[in-house]
């Protein structure tokens, strides 16, 4: 059976998504700035034939005792990984709020060319007050302003990338930027970096539909995930694009074990070592509510889950808020207590699978087959150990089921993402019974 077109990335979150991952593995605290740590992760990801590794970004220091991560600027770590890999895609996040478009365009195209056409830029806007304080702002720019800037910023960066190929100077006159410039960076094997978008606000989804080739979505349940994916693809079609040219890649948290019991025990052990109240605070921030006033056996009142927010002034991600609110409403209606919610919120907004590789594959297959996702950005419990488990135990199952490649074919990341469109169509078009009996 051939490649079914499933896209798999891995979200490199320090020592793992579990906050206590540094306490349960044989790692040194300073491994996060050591090239060997990242080189090993890159090699394992490529051994697992993954499409890409991904770094989020937060240009401000949060208390490292909560969860140590982000000790290196993302693109420098990606370049280190690029140096020991041949095929792996490299996705770095950079804010349109706190970068300069000319500097960013030149730097990213340089790295794209160096890596042989494997780079992608995840374009985000930034809402965090601690980041604003590092860039001379006392408050966050309001969302409409951030997204207006983001749209113009991304257009300008892509125009500059194209100027490297055409040799024609960009003459840009916009509300935010004025610029006459062209890049003279040698063009990369994929032309220029792929553009991803993350963020589920209406403005974010519109930006994705207009320009993104991939979307890092935040989804907890397949129904809404399918609706959101459809909405972005339909919107892309209205911009005159092939709707399938936008690949939808939600996060998926994994805590794997050789039996379900073992996975559950590992999860509980990791969470027992996590900072007190971490998941509760994370859930509360997405619901825009202080949950510490409830006892673990309480059920959340409807007015706490569903209180209205003002999109213009609510700081955090609207996409997360919508996804988490919908999920908390459903879970609570089904009888979940605060304790249940917190335990099932271990993905911090993403779907979590605590179980065997087969169970993870079941979730991946269901979401993929039904169009709730074109792939996943895996959020793995521990690095490097959990990634080794994924490469050696989950990937072979996905290959057996005809979902995932057995070798790299396309040399560039863009080529691979485009090839996934036809492969997915073919996979989803197959008769289900034939696939099961094959």
């Amino acid at each position, binding site marked *: 059976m051939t490649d079914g077109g499933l896209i798999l990335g891995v979200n490199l979150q320090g020592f793992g998504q579990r906050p206590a991952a540094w306490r349960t593995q044989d790692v040194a605290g300073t491994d996060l700035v050591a090239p060997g740590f990242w080189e090993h992760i890159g090699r394992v990801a490529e051994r697992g034939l993954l499409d890409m590794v991904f770094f989020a970004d937060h240009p401000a220091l949060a208390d490292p005792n909560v969860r140590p991560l982000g000790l290196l600027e993302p693109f420098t770590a990606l*370049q280190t990984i690029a140096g020991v890999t041949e095929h792996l895609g490299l996705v770095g996040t950079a804010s349109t709020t706190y970068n300069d478009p000319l500097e960013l365009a030149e730097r990213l195209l340089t790295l794209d060319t160096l890596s042989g056409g494997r780079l992608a830029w995840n374009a985000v806007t930034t809402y965090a007050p601690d980041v604003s304080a590092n860039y001379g702002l006392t408050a966050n720019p309001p969302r409409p302003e951030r997204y207006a800037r983001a749209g113009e910023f991304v257009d300008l960066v892509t125009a500059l990338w194209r100027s490297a190929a055409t040799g024609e100077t960009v003459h840009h006159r916009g509300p935010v930027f004025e610029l006459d410039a062209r890049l003279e960076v040698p063009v990369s094997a994929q032309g220029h970096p792929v553009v991803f978008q993350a963020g589920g606000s209406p403005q974010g989804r519109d930006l994705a539909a207009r320009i993104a080739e991939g979307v890092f979505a935040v989804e907890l349940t397949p129904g809404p995930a399918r609706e959101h994916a459809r909405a972005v693809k339909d919107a892309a079609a209205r911009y005159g694009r092939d709707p399938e040219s936008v690949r939808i890649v939600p996060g998926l948290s994994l805590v794997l074990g050789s039996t379900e019991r073992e996975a559950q025990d590992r999860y509980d052990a990791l969470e027992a070592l996590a900072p007190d109240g971490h998941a509760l605070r994370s859930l509360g921030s997405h619901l825009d509510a202080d949950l510490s006033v409830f006892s673990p056996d309480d059920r959340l009142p409807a007015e706490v889950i569903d209180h209205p927010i003002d999109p213009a002034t609510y700081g955090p991600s609207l996409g997360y808020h919508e996804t988490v609110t919908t999920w908390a409403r459903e879970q609570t209606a089904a009888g979940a207590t605060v304790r249940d919610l917190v335990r099932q919120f271990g993905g911090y907004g993403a779907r979590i699978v605590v179980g065997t590789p087969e169970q993870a594959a079941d979730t991946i297959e269901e979401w993929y087959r039904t169009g709730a996702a074109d792939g996943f950005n895996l959020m793995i419990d521990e690095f490097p150990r959990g990634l080794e488990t994924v490469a050696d135990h989950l990937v072979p199952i996905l290959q057996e089921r005809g979902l995932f490649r057995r070798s790299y074919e396309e040399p560039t990341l863009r080529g691979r993402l485009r090839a996934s469109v036809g492969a997915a169509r073919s996979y989803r078009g197959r008769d289900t019974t034939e696939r099961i009996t094959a």
Partner: protein
Amino acid sequence: MSHALVAPSDRLLATVVTERGGAARLAGAVRDAGLDVVVVGADRFDPADHGGPRVDPSVVALELGRVAPELGVLVAVAPTRDHPYNTARRILSIDHLLGGRAGVLLGGPDRYTVPAASGTAWGSAPEDDRLLDEYAAVLRGLWSTWPVESIVADRETGVYAESGSIRRLDHEGSWRIAGALTSPTSPQGEPVLAVLSGLGPVPHADLVVDVLRVDDLDAIGRDGSDPRRTSRPNGPNESTTLRTRLGLAPRRLDLTDARPAFATTGGTR
């Protein structure tokens, strides 16, 4: 006193990203000339327009240092190029990844930075050379905010870092920057902070540098004008930091009087 250091042209630097083995070839030519430090990206400070391809200096510097463990790199940076928080973070990240073999060469004006690129969230980037020392001071301050020895990673107690020793910067000037930086301090204390010769006084700089532009692999070191060439008789040493190679003592900015970045001293339970 100033140091004269070799600076490959943009055309040579571009071969690092376009040619397979390009970084090793360029680094090899530098090594064969008996040198162990290069400036990366100084063409942007050259009033003459040499034309041809150009690439991002920080990417090329990391690549050269990565493939050549015997090489130290100074990245050409103008204050107009990027916000100092971004610059501080990128340079310190590169320095960690190269085991303490990186630094910056501050200079300007940057012929590739277009002043009309307004719209930076932090306001118009200052363009005056007099602001070089403020930029230098901010880089140094940010580089010293998180002492690496605070990372104790004590699995028993759950203390990853003794966060009470992490300091804010609270810089107020042409830029307003809270800090701390996201990376802990460098293996060499701070990355090297050099300044291009002929610019105003920059008291925060470690040294002043004259660049020797070379546009031909065979020409590297041939004119013998790098005075350091004969001062390093034992050959390149991979474990030597850039500061040591340049005769600089390790240093950090003293931030003990600055405000703590976090209320607690570490530990989560």
